[in-house]
């Protein structure tokens, strides 16, 4: 079958075939699907099949395109994406910061591409890098032991919850079936606790946006397995009562879990381990500038205090007793005594870990500490420059403004027209029409001023203008309702509609 929609029509108006970055429109599409360019069906049974027919499929129909056609297709697609290299990306709690280019090069070293079933002797380099990254992360978080296995932050949360469960079970406290989570927490916390089999006890915030100690007191009981907290919280506020919170949780025998999504605000200033947290995850793709890849891969290493180390996922890396002939340390894998087992088929997202290691090694103490200082400076400066109401404060790395009478989602769409990525919207819900903004350390004053100008221009605009936005982006406002009402999730469904 051939379905070629890219034929040259000499009568076409030149303006319609402009290869302009914003809008390349072909028959009502911004870029045809691969399947609409050329499809080929291969008859499997025909010819030289090395297998009997009853063990094979009948045919396979997929796009068949030349390399130049594919290069253009994917180049076109890339031109229709806004990344941190395109401009500011102040998505609260997502920590979108610049990713140094050299980390891609080191992750692409041929010596990084090893099969996970290689013998330990033959991958001493990989094991050493993992060991050194465990050590770095332990120092940064104030944690005694670190596992690098979880392939994302939510997977790290899951490890934290599983480790907590295994710890309680081991101590004959298996009856603990509740996890306490502040209302302003990341959605993953709730989903993770539920996946771990726990009942979620939701914790309201007090008037200044922090944990309400009376409410915490009421929520805690002998059934408490853990409190999941991020500090600074998603409003950008430091939980000043953290020591008291830790004592309260520990007094009832619960564990304190640190959601590392906001760690970028604290580097070198405070450590979760010192604050009384027992277990934490690190979002290395956020804090340590490894590219988010359009939604992954990330990595979510987990650090724990010594008491919890025996329960970490298997295997872990440690220094071996033996040395090489030249006196170098050697490394080996081992299973912790009461390990929960695997949470990933192998050792997580290795290439992301290589990038994180390189980033930390590049910045060192000074760079990491400076990064968080400037992230906090930037957030406070931007908050001071925008005309939307910004309740609460003082802020760390992010702040939550309120769009007031405007619809926060519409504000976001309109900001796209000003050439900047909007903040996270409508969350946390404790601020009406929330605009959750995190500029990170990588923006200069000039860029922050432009960002503030975009906020302030939109703040003056009418609902009519906002509802029509965006108008300067590749695609205009997209109908989410129809996408959900009649889901079409593959090109097969589009082809059926056409026939």
């Amino acid at each position, binding site marked *: 079958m051939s379905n070629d929609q890219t034929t040259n029509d000499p009568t076409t108006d030149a303006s319609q075939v402009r290869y302009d970055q914003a809008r390349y429109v072909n028959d009502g599409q*911004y*870029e045809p*699907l691969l399947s609409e360019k050329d499809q080929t069906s291969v008859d499997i049974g025909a010819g030289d099949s090395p297998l009997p027919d009853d*063990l094979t*499929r009948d045919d*396979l129909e*997929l*796009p068949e395109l030349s390399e130049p056609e*594919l290069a253009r297709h994917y180049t076109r697609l890339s*031109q*229709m*994406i806004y990344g941190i290299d395109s401009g500011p990306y102040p*998505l609260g709690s*997502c920590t979108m910061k610049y990713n*140094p280019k050299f980390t891609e090069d080191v992750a692409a*070293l041929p010596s*990084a591409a090893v*099969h*996970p079933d*290689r013998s330990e002797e*033959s991958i001493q380099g990989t094991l050493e*890098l993992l060991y050194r990254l465990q050590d770095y992360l332990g120092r940064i978080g104030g944690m005694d032991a670190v596992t690098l296995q979880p*392939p994302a932050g939510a997977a790290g*949360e*899951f490890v934290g919850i599983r480790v907590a469960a295994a710890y309680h079970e081991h101590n004959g406290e298996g009856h603990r079936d509740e996890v306490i989570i502040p209302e302003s927490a990341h*959605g993953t916390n*709730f989903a993770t606790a*539920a*996946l771990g*089999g726990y009942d979620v006890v939701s914790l309201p915030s007090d008037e200044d946006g922090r944990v309400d100690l009376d409410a915490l007191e009421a929520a805690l009981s002998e059934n408490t397995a853990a409190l999941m907290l991020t500090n600074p919280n998603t409003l950008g506020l430091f939980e000043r009562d953290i*020591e008291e919170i830790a004592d309260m949780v520990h007094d009832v025998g619960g564990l304190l879990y640190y959601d590392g999504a906001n760690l970028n605000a604290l580097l070198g*200033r*405070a450590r979760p381990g010192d604050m009384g947290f027992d277990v934490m995850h690190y979002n290395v793709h956020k804090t340590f500038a490894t*590219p988010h890849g*359009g*939604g992954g891969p990330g990595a979510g290493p987990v650090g724990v205090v010594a008491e919890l180390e025996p329960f970490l996922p298997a295997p872990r890396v440690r220094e071996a007793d033996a040395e090489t002939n030249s006196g170098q340390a050697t490394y080996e894998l081992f299973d912790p005594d009461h390990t929960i087992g695997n949470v*990933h*088929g*192998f050792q*997580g997202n290795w290439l992301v870990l290589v990038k994180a290691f*390189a980033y930390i090694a*590049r*910045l060192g103490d000074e760079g*990491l500490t400076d990064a968080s200082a400037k992230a906090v*400076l930037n957030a406070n*400066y931007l908050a001071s420059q925008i005309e939307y109401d910004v309740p609460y404060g003082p802020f760390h790395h992010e702040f939550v403004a309120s769009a007031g009478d405007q619809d926060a989602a519409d504000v976001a769409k309109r900001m796209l027209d000003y050439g900047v990525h909007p903040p*996270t919207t409508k*969350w946390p819900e404790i601020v009406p029409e929330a605009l959750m903004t995190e500029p990170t350390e990588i923006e*200069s004053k000039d860029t922050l001023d432009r960002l503030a100008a975009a906020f302030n221009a939109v703040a003056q605009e009418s609902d009519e203008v906002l509802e029509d936005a965006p108008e300067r982006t*590749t*695609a*205009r*406002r997209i*109908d989410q309702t129809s*996408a*959900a009402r009649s*889901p079409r*999730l*593959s090109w097969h469904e*589009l082809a059926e509609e056409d026939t």
Partner: protein
Amino acid sequence: MNESDTYTTGSPYAPHTDDGRTAMLEAIGVDSVDELFDIPEAVRFTDGFGIDARSERETRRLVRSVLDRNADLTELLGRGHYGYYIPSLVDHLADRSEFLTSYTQYQPEVSQGFLQALFEYQSLLVELTGLEIANCSMYDAATALGEAATLAERVRSTSGHRVLVPDLLRDGRRSTLENYVAGTDLTVESYPTDDGTVDVDALESTVDEGDDVVMVYAENPTVRGTIEEQLESIGEVADGADALFVLGSDPVALSLLQRPADVGADVVIGDASVLGLPTSYGMGLGLFACREEFLRQVPGRLVGVSEDATDRRAFTLTLQTREQHIRRERATSNICTNQAWVALRTAMHAASLGPNGMVDLAKRGVTRADELAARLDDLDGVQAPVHDRHHIREFVARVDQPAPAIAEDLEKRGFAVHVVGEHEIQVCVAGVPDDDLDDFVAAMTEVVR
């Protein structure tokens, strides 16, 4: 130190001038950045981590010198994870920074390119599996298997709790599955295999031991590289027990082997990173496809088609009310960051091969494995393949000498193979050039002599 080795004090990626910083502090109304940190004295950290800063050049040298400790071996390793050659096109285009440096597509109007690429990835999986729905990634095969089990629990309203998996299953996969179901009422149980494939009678008796099976899992090919010949019967056993039939596979195998939809599979999981990623120490891409009736119970992200305000076709994340950021503790999964960029790479690699290339790659997996097995079988002290079955990409060989000693000896000669039993090694041809296979046979000849 030459000029390119210099580095700024502090983060080289935080571009503040002194004047700019002063102006910002003034605007905020504080004298120093320190005043902005609202941290109680008792928990302030002032010690430093003890990590030295390095120039970019020094950092590259550090990482290279550490990784250079890895031995340069020809890997005849597989068992679900393959080192196929990746066309340069994939590296160059996937590394375009718009792909690499964007976030989850919460603002579809400025994310059309990525959304379309993910939609094309979903479409690839729909074609390969024959099932109607594919999500745009889980972490890897093991976590996708775990998600399949929790899906089974959600979609079956029976009192069932048993999840059956073959006794030929990678430890990491089984262990991950057990962690995923630890918070549910599900329990994981093994059923027997025979000669490298499912023993359907034994499976049937295992199922009959109770009427409470919610999921039957099988793999094609199996971890030992054998092709499963009784998929339809396995599907019937699962169906008879009102359980989901979940099949593990991968995009290369699916290009040639029976279409999962045709043998009654309800869900297909697996590692799609066999295309698009180097071996990467086990980094993966969880494939997840299922029947349409599970649409609202599917874990993970879905990209769908819609229209924009000018009535042009446009793509968007859809059915997000299943997801953690909206549904919180009632979400179908806790997954947030997934493996989007790996999915992009896989789709690129598949597109680069085209359907003829995909089928050809799979067929060569069968013929080259057969050829290598025959050559090894000719050696004294080696019987290959152990299983009297059709194989794809890899097979198990029996060796008269202890397998660990053989593997160690081979490693000294530059080859990595699996040890899967006291006298069993497993070898894989995927991604290994013919010349290297010749060298491997020569090395084996020496080793078993």
